[in-house]
């Protein structure tokens, strides 16, 4: 119960901070849209191929934008050692992890939702299975990135070259999650005659369970000096 209350307070702080520094959020969203635009140019005039790969473009955009969002989320903690202040209050490291990870999840979810109309405009992709399953894919995929992302952003936060270190640590770890998210999202867009969507979402949620559990357990090791 204590963990839930503390996580909720950390989450409220995260959301307030995101709102007060919303220019950074806009920049992150714009960066994600710019990647979509670049893919639309790189794909040339082959409309069918663009539409076929649109789920992949969406998730690569979200993944690249996640490094900005996650890095910013930890920059504010380390700039004046605010995370140390939280620990000395004392707040449990697990509560800090869950509060921050849920905050990052919501940011990635928002970025993904903003990207969806552009996916339709740029790649002529429409979700044939409906918007509900698409949002479920976005939620599960964002959750599968945000938990390990929060953990590794904290690991990288004190390093001198943290901007480079975070993707190097994070991307190999979340490749299976991104593959599952791309497959699930592709089925939502292209149609799911073989009923495979549930399986891919199951894989994604399994990754979420592992990453969110391990993150909560390991965060004290990462954040305590």
């Amino acid at each position, binding site marked *: 119960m204590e963990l839930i209350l503390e996580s909720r307070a950390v989450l*409220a702080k995260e959301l307030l*901070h995101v709102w007060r520094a919303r220019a950074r959020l806009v920049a992150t969203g714009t960066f994600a849209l710019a990647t979509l635009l670049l893919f639309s140019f790189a794909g040339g005039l082959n409309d069918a191929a663009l539409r076929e790969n649109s789920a992949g473009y969406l998730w690569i955009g979200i993944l690249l934008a996640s490094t900005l969002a996650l890095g910013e989320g930890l920059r504010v903690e380390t700039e004046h050692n605010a995370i140390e202040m939280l620990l000395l209050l004392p*707040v449990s490291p697990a509560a800090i992890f869950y509060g921050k990870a849920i905050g990052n999840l919501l940011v990635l979810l928002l970025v993904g939702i903003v990207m969806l109309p552009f996916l339709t405009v740029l790649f002529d992709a429409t979700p044939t299975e409906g918007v509900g399953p698409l949002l479920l894919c976005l939620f599960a995929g964002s959750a599968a990135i945000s938990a390990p992302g929060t953990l590794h952003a904290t690991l990288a936060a004190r390093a001198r070259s943290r901007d480079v270190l975070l993707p190097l640590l994070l991307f190999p770890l979340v490749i299976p999650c991104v593959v599952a998210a791309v497959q699930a999202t592709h089925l939502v867009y292209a149609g799911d005659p073989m009923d495979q969507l549930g399986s891919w979402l199951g894989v994604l949620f399994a990754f979420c369970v592992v990453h969110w559990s391990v993150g909560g357990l390991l965060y004290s090791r990462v954040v305590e000096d």
Partner: protein
Amino acid sequence: MPDPAILATAVGRRFAGRWAVRDVSLTVAQGESVLVHGANGSGKTTLLRVLASAISPTAGSVTVLGKPAIEARSKVGLLSHADGHYDELSGRDNLELAVKLGHLPDRIDAVLERVGLAARAGDAVRGYSAGMRKRLAFARLLLKAPPVVLMDEPYAALDPAGHQFVDELCAEFSAQGATVLISTHQVGRVAQWCDRAIRMDQGRLGWSGDASELRTRPADAVAAAEERA
């Protein structure tokens, strides 16, 4: 006999192969006020951070009020160089966060008034001067009102009125029975009210004695005391 407020046993802390603090053993009684002084880089900040469990010791152990330091965090207040504020939040938001997460009494208005930030409490901290940031850190310390107070360079960035405020605050903590460890270069000033002084020298405890010896011409007094030792 009550547990000592702080009991450090052979504490050492190493950064990248270099010992910042080495083999420091220290006992501070409850209610005692101790001045920690020494040259730049002598290990004062590291010692205070280890005692507050902000960083873990590489060697030795620290107990606070009879418990391992990490389990006694709610009893310790650390005022450090890095103030721990969130720049985009207002001063009041920062204090509200501390109240919520630290389960502290909601005396935010009174505390803001006390530190002289009531008029700017709604402004984002990024617009605060260094002295105002320090005052906000004092406000958080006042909210916590811990029985063990560790202050690292509390006078830095403050104007003369701020210096007076720090003196009053320390006197108030001491009057309430709190244990105060204060690391500063303002040796003559702090020696006026401290019980004991310790000097850090290249990471080790160099000299320890009655603060009264430092009340006049602190540099000479330290040299004489060290010679006697």
